[in-house]
């Protein structure tokens, strides 16, 4: 099956991107494609359902999730290997999908999004007639 999802972000997935003076973190994402649609799995630690925003517009799926800082801004660390902040990532999906029927499930900091393909785009098995 041909890969039909195009990545819009060029930045390394784990590097924070500076936008409007506030840092945005790019969540790691797995994408699975079946005949019926695409399933996106995104790691969004610390995100609650109320802080999550998923939109689909102009062939672009956008995941945005606010994360409140968990420690005071001036906290001093013995070791600091990651930052905490808003997650943001967009994907251009160049297969016809039904944006109205996207299903989202957020559990234990993991987002699962199912983006169904439109009927016309679904895999259709072609019956082979023997002659």
């Amino acid at each position, binding site marked *: 099956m041909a890969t039909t999802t195009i990545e819009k972000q060029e930045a390394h997935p784990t590097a924070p991107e500076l936008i409007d003076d506030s840092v945005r973190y790019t969540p790691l994402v*797995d994408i*699975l494609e079946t005949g019926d649609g695409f399933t996106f799995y995104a790691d969004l630690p610390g995100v609650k359902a109320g802080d999550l925003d998923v939109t689909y517009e102009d062939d672009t799926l956008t995941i945005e999730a606010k994360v409140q800082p968990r420690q005071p801004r001036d906290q001093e660390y013995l*070791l600091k290997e990651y930052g905490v902040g808003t997650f943001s990532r967009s994907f251009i999906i160049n297969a016809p999908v039904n944006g109205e029927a996207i299903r989202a499930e957020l559990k234990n900091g993991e987002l699962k999004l199912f983006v169904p393909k439109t009927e016309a785009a679904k895999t259709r098995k072609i019956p082979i007639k023997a002659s």
Partner: protein
Amino acid sequence: MARLSDLFAPLPLFRDDFVERALGTTLGGFAEEGFPSLNIWDANDKVFVEAELSGVAPADLDVSVAGADLTISGNRKAVDPANGTKARQERPSGQFSRTVTLPWETEADKVEAVLRDGVLTITLTKAVQCRPKKVTVRAT
């Protein structure tokens, strides 16, 4: 409060030491420093260790303490492709284990670990002999 630059060389809380000490597996592509990434800070007699562990159930996670060593290990299940194809695979999966040596011995029976929304927060209590003690200065 101890800072990285204040620690004497033998106390292993330097980043390079983590690369050597971390027992991160290469299975599924975990980062070289070891998985999971950690943020560590202390306040008075407590030490806090935080890790981002999305998609790991408490049953698949193990946190253990021995003296000044804290070990976080577990298994993160990979996505089952079922009858589909993986168009993109970025998230690591599989067995992981990471051990860090803290600058203080801790009391093993006073460790709390909470996993919420994919964030693991471990609160440890410094052993009595490691806590800061006020010293009264006498004038003679």
